[in-house]
Structure formats: structure tokens, C-alpha cells
């Protein structure tokens, strides 16, 4: 039997790996992949909670049909946003590469004070 805890632990692990990757890796592409990992960790959590609360009586319509798809809806939104982010992010990476001939984040510090 797979319980909610399993999903949550998996989500937390993925998120931590993503966050750790984002903080430590200097390659923008890897950083983008880390962000992707964090987003999907959140997606997993949302879907898991949605599944958990599907049996909540207060949210179930008469007749037993599960009407509560909020978590899954959020997951879809996040997938859409992630796609847009990837497109914009990769365009920025390309522009950065043309500007500096490099995709290292520690070299892209033009906006420092």
C-alpha cells in the first residue's frame, strides 16, 4: 500500500534536490533543469493531496461522485507555466550566450550594484 507519506517524501526529496541543484550548479541549463525538478515536485504533492482529499465527505457531491479536482487543476496550470518559463528561459540563455559566449550564472552579473 502506498500512503500519502510516500508521495510527500518523494516530493520533498525531489524539491530538495532541485533547490540544492539550483543553488550549487553554475550552468544556467542545469539551473533551469533544477527549477523544472522543483516545479514537478510541487505538482506531485498537489496531485497527492488531491487524491487524499477525494474521499472528504464535505467535498463530495450527493451520489458519491468526486468533484474536487483543484489539485490536479493546479498541476495543469503549473505544467503550462513551466512550459512558458522553459521557452523564455531558454531564449534568455541563448541571448546570454550570444552576449558573453558562456552560460555560467556567475559570469552573468551585469546587474550588480
Amino acid at each position: 500500500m502506498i500512503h500519502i507519506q510516500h508521495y510527500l517524501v518523494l516530493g520533498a526529496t525531489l524539491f530538495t534536490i532541485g533547490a540544492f541543484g539550483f543553488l550549487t550548479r553554475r550552468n544556467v541549463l542545469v539551473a533551469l533543469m533544477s527549477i523544472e525538478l522543483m516545479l514537478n515536485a510541487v505538482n506531485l504533492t498537489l496531485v497527492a493531496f488531491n487524491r487524499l482529499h477525494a474521499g472528504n465527505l464535505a467535498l463530495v457531491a450527493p451520489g458519491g461522485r468526486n468533484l474536487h479536482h483543484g489539485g490536479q487543476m493546479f498541476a495543469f496550470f503549473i505544467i503550462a507555466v513551466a512550459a512558458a518559463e522553459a521557452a523564455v528561459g531558454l531564449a534568455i540563455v541563448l541571448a546570454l550566450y550570444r552576449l558573453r559566449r558562456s552560460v555560467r550564472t556567475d559570469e552573468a552579473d551585469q546587474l550588480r550594484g
Partner: protein
Amino acid sequence: MHTLFAIFPAQQFALIAAILGLPLLGAFVNGVFGKRLGRDAVRLMALAALFGSFACSLVAFFMLRERAHELGHGELAPNPRLVWTAWHWLALSGRDALGSVNVDVSFAIDPLSGVMMLVVTGVGSLIHLYAASYMWDDPSFHRFFCYLNLFVFSMLVLILGDSMPLLFVGWEGVGLCSYLLIGFWFTEEKNAAAGKKAFIANRVGDFGLLVGMAMLLYYTGALDFEGIRRGAGGLLDPRGVQVWPLGAGFPSWLVGWLPDGIEKGLTAQRLAFPATLCGLALFLGCAGKSAQIPLYVWLPDAMAGPTPVSALIHAATMVTAGVYLVCRLNFVFVLSPAVMATVATVGALTALFAATIGLVQHDLKKVLAYSTVSQLGYMFLGVGSGAFTDGFFHVFTHAFFKACLFLGAGSVIHAVHARIHDTDASQDMRNMGGLRKYMPLTHATYLASCVAIAGVPPFAGFFSKDEILAKAFETKIKAHAIAGAAAERIGPLWTPPDWLGPLLYFVGIAGATMTAFYMFRTYFLTFWGDFKGWKVTPGWKEPGHDEHHGHDDHGHDHHEAFAPGTGRDHLEGPEPHESPSPMTIPLVILAAFAVGAGFLNATILGETLHAPELMTMEHWLAPVFAPSKGDVVVPAFDASHAWMLAIPGLIAAAVGIGFAYFAYVVKGGEPTRNIAARAPKLHQLMLDKWRVDELYDATVIGAVDELANTAVVADKWVVDGVLAKASAAFVGLFGAGLRLFQTGKVQTYAAAMVVGTLALTVFFYLPHPDASITSDPATGTFRVQAGPGLGYRYRWDADGDGKLDEFDSDGDGKPDDKFGPRDAIEVKLEPNQSKQVTLAVENAFGRHDTRTITVARPAQEQPGAPVLMPRPAPRPPPPGG
């Protein structure tokens, strides 16, 4: 007439909107579109606006006459008024919470403003017509008429405005237009400087006017003229005013070291009547606008503007605004005999002083300018003597003859321009002469106006000036009855000594003699003899004389003569010529009024012949001046006495004209040259206008310059240094510190975000038992309210036994020891009692925390003041454990 009153009822007299609106429209159209419209359209717009306004004014004036007849013409006839309230403007709070003072944008035509309105639009129309021809070749034709129309609009606001603030709007508006028009040819430094001078001298006066307005608001509780009249008694407030720093307010550290006598003298209680201070402040404003000592210096320089401007603004209308204000507020001025005496004395001195300068000037317009200053002095002498009607009547007649003189001078300058193209040389009377035969119409009208201003009967100037002088001699201002109440505290109201009136009368006679002389000097030098303009042409040689005599025409003294032998056979190029008809028609009309207008108020004739129709003006203005009538003591008319007083005036005119004729026509200028040669220093001093400008430069302007230099230092070190640079450096320091955090590296920001998120997580993970206390002082009940949080549930120890109380937390009717939703408890306390309450909180993560709160009630109740003394307490054992 009936229909007209049906359309324009007296209390909502919208015709005023047309009178005011047309010149404003003209200014707008000419100012915004003038350049594209072309000269013809600009002229049409400007003239149509003015003539339309004049036509409306005429209709309004006759309606006012009708209204006056309706109201009756008895001794105490109410003031007939046609009022138009455009909109509510503002409300000011009055003194001592007397309530609010409403100021409306409201205009009124009454006998005084009605006459003035006719003069402004009538003379204004004629001068517009004249100027359309005079200024035709100017590249800024449209700009000129924009300003001129705007001026007429502002002047009408000044006149028709029914309250002091509105009058002030007009007052500033005409000042602005005056500035713009004096500096109309601003490419020449001298003209721009003259405009600035006029503007700044007027600012000094406006300061006085503003102070006067504030005092009127404070003491009379109103700013509209009707309200000021009703509350004028407040200006004789028996409490008086102390003028800082004189009197008890003198700072003691400043005078403490002085000998006792002087110190006492400086710090002794000294009070003045508000009426005196208010009147003096208002008169300062009048002196600025109407060019009286000490602020007259701007008016002669104002002649730098085009001649029609000099005629309209600086002779006929704007400069008389000060006299108009005194007439309008006659009931305020008359309250203080000291102010009236000041007005009369300053007027008489200005009349004499300006006349002495006018005696020797060579520039035709300068002479006329000093003549204007001098005549304004006569007007103030009149109103200051309590002869408001006569002072105002002189405004009326002066508008005609002085406008005519200025326009005549313009016509002469226009003619002389045929030969002389230099501005200064074309106005120099030494280059004129003999113009009689070239321009007969200008000559005739100029002569008529000269006769009028010189005071030859029966021309207009005689009746107005003679009556002013006679009234100055015999009229007295008596202290108002209310002032007696204040005698104990302030002392009696000062009244001038009896010899002041006769003295001013003789000063006036002396001035009148000079007036007659210098006016006829200009007349003879300009129109008689032979034209000397040829001499200015380069290469000109006087026939039959030595070569070296030729060009020497820029010294003084010996050029006032008519050099013989400059016959017409030597001329080359165009001759001087009469001006075109649009310029001569206004001259003729104005001259006609200069000749005949005197019969509107020929008091001396009217009284002698018992013919009230010769005193129309006095009768007409009586309701306006009725409020001040009680304080002006006029002796009963005595024909022999009146004619005795008139004779010195007649002699003055005869002597002045006779001497001018003798000196310039019979002797060819020799006598005046001899006099000048005998006292060369005095002559030079008068030629330099008594060097008053230089005096002001050395004193007032020098002081202001020094002040400015000091301010520059303060600006450089304090404002720029300490305030700007030091504070910028201080802020910059923080900036430099904060800049270290902005690395531009995306991972640093992400790390900061992670740290912040962790901090928030910790904050929300831990429970926070916080509470606020509110008290009800009446019952001594204190309510302890716990703060909300994520999933918070509470337990309380309200009885102070150290254990958490049992409540029914889950709603099953039985008390239990679980956490519940109860987030507040009430504690009742006696005075000076205190109690400890413990609050325990459990949050969504099942974490607990407690806090002990002391609730105390002070012995002395301070109503409404909550008492909050939270104190962290040692943690009690975990509940339920």
C-alpha cells in the same frame, strides 16, 4: 428699458458678462490665433471686442440711471447697483470664529464703477482705434492687441469687482499687462528694464494692499465692499493695535543696556487705531499703482512702451486705480483723519515735485509722464481732503485730456519719424517745432488739451482742479464718533492741524503754475517756430553759419530756442505729415471732452447760478460717498469765498502760460536759458529728476543687492552644502552598504530566498501566545484578547491558581481540559488591584506555548487608557501531561 430689465434683472445682471467677456475673447483670439489671422482680422477682432464692450457698457449705464431714478434721489438714497454673481469663489474663516466670510466672483455696477467703466471702455475704444493705425507696421501687431485687450479686461475686473480679492485680481492683471506692454519692444535692454522696474515698484505697493486687505478681513469681517461698509466700525476697535516691535513687545535683550529713559520710551505701551494702519497700508498700494511719492519712479520709465499704451494705461485708466480704490473705500479712509491727511499731503507733494521735474525735461513723453504723476497727485489731494467727488471727477477729466495729449504726442512722434528714425531723438522736443502747419488737427486738439490741463476756464481741467484746491483749503475731516470710546486706552484720534489745508492749497497752486508752464512749453516747442528735424539728418549744414556749428545738437540749454534760418528750401526727403484719420478721429473726440466735460461737475458755477444741472456728477455719485459724508466737514457754499479761492488758480494758469509764451515765442527760449545758466547745478539736478533713481539705487536697491549677496553665501554653504550635499552623502553611505548585497549573481538571490523561506517556516511552526488588553473604566472590566494564528486553539488560567482552567472546549456541555476556540476572557478588577492571567496556545502543528499576562487597574482611573503589561513567565508544565 422695461424689456431690458426683464432680460437682465438688477440682481442677476448678466450683461456684465458681455462687458467683461468681449475683451477677454479678443485677447484670447488675438493671442492664440493672431499670427495666422493676419493684421486685418486682428484689428477687426480687437476693435469689435472693445466697441462691443463699450456699447454694452452704455446700455448698462443707462439701465443704472433708470434704476437710480426708480430708487429715488433723496439725501439718503440707497446706492443703485446692478449685480452679477458668477460663481461662489471661496470661504475664509473670520476673526474669533465670527463665522466664515464668503467671497463670490461677483461684479457690480454702481454710480462710481459705472462712470469708470464708461471711461475705460470709451477711452479704451478710441485708443484701440488709434493704435490699430499707429502700430500697423509693427511685426508683433497681434501680440500688442492681445495684451491691450487683456488689459481692458483686467481693468474692468478691477473696477467692477465687488470684493477686495476680485479687485486684487484685476489689480494684478493690469499690473501684468502694464509690464508686458512697457517691455513690448523687449529686444532693447532699456525697455525690458523699464518693464521690470514698473513691476517691482508695484510689488512694493501690492504688499501694502495685501496687508490692508488682511486687516479689513480681520476687523470688518468681510471682503465685499458692502460688507466692509457695514463692518467699518470694527476698524475703530477700542482695543487698538500695537505695532511690533514698538511698545511692550520690544525684545528686552535688545534695549536692556540702554539708558532708562530711552528704554522706557521704546517699550512704553503705544497703541494705534486699526483704521489708521489699515488706511496707510491700503494707501501704500494706491501709491504704487498710482505713482505717488515714494513709488512714483516707475511711471516716467514706463514711457518706454508704445505711445497708445502710455495713453491708455499710464495716463487714462490704470494709474487712476489707486484713486478709484480710495473712492471705493471712502468709508474706510475717512475713519482716520491721519490717513486722510497723509493721502492729501503725499498727493500735494507729488503734484509739486513731479511738476518741477517736468519743467526741464526734453523728451515730450517724459514731460507728459511727469505731468501725469503730478495730476495724480492732485487727485489724491482731492480724495485726501474728503472731496471724493472732485478727486474722482479729476480722474474723469484727466482721462480725456491726458489721453488726448499722449495720443497727440504719438501723432507728433509718428510725423517726426518721417525725418528722424531714432526713437529717442524723435521724442526730443529740441528736434521738433513748427509742426502747426504740417498737422493742423493734431495741433488743435493738443492745444485744447493743454488749455484744459492748465486750468483755463471753462475747460474741463479748470473745474476739476479748482474744486480740488478749494476743497483742500476749507474741508476738514473730523474724528469719528465711535473713536471717543477708545480715547482712554489709545488716546484721541489724531486730527490734522488747521493750517494743513491752506498749506496744501498753496502747494497745489504752485504746482498748477508749473503745470501751465511746462504744458505750454511742450506746446510752443513742438508746434510753433520752425521744424528743426532737418538738423538730425546726417550731413546737414546750417546755411550762412560756420561749419562747426552744424551737428552740435546734443548738448542742452541752447537748443530750446527756435534756430532761425532753417527754411524749407533746405529740406530733402519727406516732410512731417498729418496722421491718418483713424488717428485723428480719437484725438478730436477726446479733445471735445477735454473742452466740455467740465460742465458735468462745474460746482463753482452750479452753486453760484443755483443750477444743479451743472453738478450732475456730484449728484450722481452722492450715494457712493454717502457713508463718509458724516465725517467730512464742508463749510456752506459762499460764492465770494469760492471765487476768491478760484482766483489764485486762474492767476497760476495765466502766469504759467504767459511765461511760457514770453520765454519760448517772444524771446526764443532765452529767459529759460539764462535762468538755467544762473543756477547750473540746480538745473542739472532737475534734469536728472532730482537723482531720486540714484538715491534708490544707493539705498534700497543697494541694500537688497547686499541681502542677495548674503543669501547667495547662505545658499552656497547651507542649502547646497549642508542640506543638499551632506544629506546626499549620508544617503549615499547607506547606498554603498546596501550595494554590497546586490551582487548580480542569481544564486545569491536564490540563497537569500531560501533563508527567508526557512525563517518564515520557523515563525509559523512555533506558536505565539500574544494578547492585547482593552478596559472598560466604568465597570473595571478588562478584556484579554489573544492574537490569531494558523489553526490556533487556546486555554486560559483566569483564576490565577497556576493551573489551566477547564472549559467546555468541544461544545458537549461538559468542561474539559482540551484546547478550544475561546480566544478572549474578561477579568473584573477593583481599583489598585492586579491579576495574573495565563494564556496557552496550541497551533496547527500541535506545538504549545504559554504566557503570563498581568492585568492591573490603577488607583486613579485614566479613562480609555488601556493597560498592557505582558511579561514572559516561566513555562508551566505542559497541559495534560
